[in-house]
Each structure stands twice: as structure tokens, then as C-alpha cells.
């Protein structure tokens, strides 16, 4: 497996306030990483820096394939649900926004683009909603549409920031099932931010735990064997987490 994302000595600051410093890690192609950490630990800032939304103070980020070509990235932002029911945007119009990265100049869309939109809507099971106003959909449907927007340009890397925080447990389960299929069947590398350690432990393959720097990065087996993690989280919490998710505890 080749590295898909390589982050070296990354530091992010807002003005004089340092969010985190000296973060280094690599994500292999086809990986499914859960990014967790307490509030203010720098999870969202990390992915925003990865995506170029915020500037980095120092360090480097590379999101490339084996040949060094820049990979297409899909992004599902935090609080991305448009709560305004008056916002006049059809599902098709919203999903088509995910194709603008490949366009230049006027960024007009053509009939191929419309086919791509319909294909991804079909794949995510929301094609019948294509002409609906996005504000009229349920939270789960809206999140599927926004996942379609992130997936429409066939990204090799998908970054999701708290995608299920507004969903009920049943819809959340369905959504994680969808992500699992994208990862296992289509080989899409996924970085998933969540404050919900339980969901992350259940669905992702590796954990990256942040607290103004990397506290832990590795598989859940490694997490459960780590004495340092036992001291950080407390041995009882670590044991409970590992037992619940079927990992052998040290």
C-alpha cells in the first residue's frame, strides 16, 4: 500500500493561538481513519489544513498517488446541513457543485456532468429525490445528498467532519454502512472526524487521537495493547472501549 496522505511537522495557529504543533502522520491508500479528541483538540483545524481551507503556520502536507499526482478529494463539512427550508436549491444543483473543482473559467456543466450527478445519486440511493428542494428533505436524506456532492468527482480521499451528529441512531447506522461500502468496495480512503469514540471504534480501521498534538495513531489492537493509552484514558475506560469493540486488552 502506498501513502495517500503524508503530513510532516504540521503546526496550525489562529493568530497567536496555537491549535496544535508538530503533527506528523501518514495515511495509506484504502485506509479508514477515525479522528477523535476532546473539544478544541484541533480535529477540525487538522482537516481544514489538509484541505487548504486554513493556512498552516509550518510543516507540509501531501495528498498524492504513487506517481505524485494530486488526488481528487471529497469533503463533507461539519454543520453542512442547510437548515433554511427557503434556500432554493434542488438536490441535483447541490450535488453538481462537487464537480466544479474539475472546471475552469465559467465552470459551466455539460451533459456528462449531469450523468455523473445522476449516477452518484443512484449509487447512494437518493436518485428519486433529484428534483426535490434540499431544504425539504429529512436530516438523513440531506446528509446522503451532501455525501453524493463529496463523491461526485470520484475522489480517492473522502474527508468527513462529524457527519452523523444530527442523525438519529438508525439513520446513523445506515450512513456508516454506506461509508464502509465506499471504503471496502471502491477503495476510497476515508478520514472521519467524530467526538463519538464508540462509533469510530465500531466502524473505522485506525484511530488518530488528537489533543493539541497526536496522542495516539494506530490500529485498535495497538490502542488496546498500549499502556500509555491506559494511563491517558484511565485503564477502566480503555478496557471498556476495547471489550465493547472486541479487541484484546493488554
Amino acid at each position, binding site marked *: 500500500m502506498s501513502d495517500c496522505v503524508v503530513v510532516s511537522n504540521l503546526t496550525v495557529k489562529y493568530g497567536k493561538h496555537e491549535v496544535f504543533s508538530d503533527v506528523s502522520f501518514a495515511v495509506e491508500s484504502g485506509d479508514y481513519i477515525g479522528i477523535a479528541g476532546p473539544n478544541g483538540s484541533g480535529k477540525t483545524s487538522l482537516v481544514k489544513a489538509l484541505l487548504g481551507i486554513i493556512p498552516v503556520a509550518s510543516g507540509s502536507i501531501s495528498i498524492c498517488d504513487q506517481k505524485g499526482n494530486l488526488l481528487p478529494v471529497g469533503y463533507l463539512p461539519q454543520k453542512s446541513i442547510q437548515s433554511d427550508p427557503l434556500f432554493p436549491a*434542488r438536490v441535483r444543483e447541490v450535488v453538481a457543485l462537487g464537480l466544479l473543482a474539475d472546471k475552469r473559467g*465559467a*465552470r459551466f456543466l455539460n451533459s456528462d456532468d449531469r450523468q455523473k450527478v445522476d449516477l452518484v445519486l443512484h449509487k447512494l440511493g437518493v436518485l428519486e429525490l433529484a428534483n*426535490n428542494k434540499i431544504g425539504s428533505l429529512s436530516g438523513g436524506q440531506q446528509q446522503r445528498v451532501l455525501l453524493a456532492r463529496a463523491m461526485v468527482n470520484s475522489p480517492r480521499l473522502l474527508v468527513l467532519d462529524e457527519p452523523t451528529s444530527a442523525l438519529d441512531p438508525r439513520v446513523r447506522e445506515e450512513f456508516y454502512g454506506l461509508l464502509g461500502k465506499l471504503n471496502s468496495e471502491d477503495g476510497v480512503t476515508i478520514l472521519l472526524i467524530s467526538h463519538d469514540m464508540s462509533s469510530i471504534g465500531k466502524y473505522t480501521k485506525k484511530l488518530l487521537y488528537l489533543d493539541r498534538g497526536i496522542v495516539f495513531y494506530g490500529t485498535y489492537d495497538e490502542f488496546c495493547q498500549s499502556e500509555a493509552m491506559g494511563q491517558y484514558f484511565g485503564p477502566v475506560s480503555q478496557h471498556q472501549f476495547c471489550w465493547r469493540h472486541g479487541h484484546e486488552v493488554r
Partner: protein
Amino acid sequence: MKYVELMLEAMQYDFMRRALLVGVLIGLSCAFLGTFLVLRRLSMIGDGLAHVSFAAVALALLLSASPLLISIPLVVVASFAIMSLGENSAVNGDAAIGLVASFSVAAGVIIATMARGFNVDLMSYLFGSILLITNTEVLISALLSVAVLAVVIFFFNSLFAVTYDEEFARVMGLKTSQLNYLIGILTAVTIAIGIRVVGTMLISSLIIFPTVTALQVARGFKASVLIAALVSVTCVVLGIFASYVFNLPTGATIVMFNAGAFAVAFVIRRMSLA
């Protein structure tokens, strides 16, 4: 029949044809831009810039220069000032509009007091005087309106992306800050040419009313822009004719038709929800 005859009679006059041409083009520009401004909750930027245009017109009259040529650069600078103040976390966006607008009105009043001779002219810019528009103003207004429409159509998808989700637009590689300034320039130009139609006091209504009316009934973004354009043009045309037929002030009459259109759309939406 009597009203139709009066409308046909009106069309024989040059000033009516000029008013209709400029009114329709400015109505279209306002509706196209209004959709982006209203959905980004920047409706009041139009009102703020209209206040700036009041000061700009007063200055132009003091200098005996063309109000249009003085207004455009000053209003563009003011729109940049509002946006950069708003980007600065020390001043909220609406407070930035308030600061620039009240400063401009104060400057306009001081200029008007210093030069007492042109207060009648200034009044015509406060409430609009589209029927008095000159051929040169028609030409400049038509060219600028067409330019505004062309730029909006060219950048339509990018502007929609920034309006719907600015952060996602940035991830898509769009230069969101430049697009925001582009919206500011287009708004400033539209306001500067639009004050001839309805005046500085009412120009923001041309931006806000058609869009809010369209939002009551439209399901898609493109449909919303097209409905806003249709509403705007219809109200401008009806307003100009009605002002001729009933001898009413043109700008205010256009706004009244817009208010009526909004009321109808609002009722339609309420009935469809019931």
C-alpha cells in the same frame, strides 16, 4: 380599453421608451444580484450602498460632474470598506454597513447644506426620476447593466457555490474572497445606476423584493433567479406605465407593484403548505 390606449400613447414618447429600456435592464441586474445577496443575508448591503450613493450624488452636483461617474467608484470603494470591515472580527457585518451608511448620509447632508443651490436635483436622486433620464445616461446605464448581467451569467456556478456553502467552494478550488469582492463591485455598479430609477431611498427594494418573492415559490436555484428576474421586469414595466397613467411617482409605484407581487407569492406559499 382606456388604460391600454393610454399605455400605447405613452410608448410614443421618447422618455417613456428610454425609461422602459433602462428600467428593464436595471431590474434584471438587481434581480440577478439580489438572489446572491439575499441568500447570503447581505440584503442590507444594498441599502447601505444606496446611502453612500446619496453622498456621491451630492458631491457630483457640488462639483458639477456626472453623478453616475462619481457614484460608481465611490460606491465600489464603500462596498470594499463594508466587506473588509465585516471580515475583521472587531466589527459585525451589519454594524459595518451601518457605520459606512451613516457616515455617508452625514457627509451628503453636509455637502447639500454647503451648496444650497442643488437641493431640488438631489431630491430627484433621493426618490428617482427615471422619466427625466438623458440619452447619455441611457447609454451608460444600458452598457453597465449588460456588463453586470454578463458577469453574473459567466460566474453563475461559482457564485452559486459560494452562496450555498463557502467553505466547500474553497475546497473546490474557487477563489471565494475574489468572488465576494466581485459581488461587491457588481452590487455597487448596479446601485449607482439604479438610483436613477427608484432613488437612493428605494433602490434596495429592487434588490430584495423580487428575490424574496421568488423564494416563496421557487424550488431550484436557477428557477429562483429566473422568477426573480421575471417579477422584477414585470413590476418595473407595470410601475412605469402606472405612474404615467395615474400620474404617480415612478420609483414608488414600482416598489408598490413589487410589494403586491410579494404578497401574492406569500399567500401562494402559505396555501401550498396548508
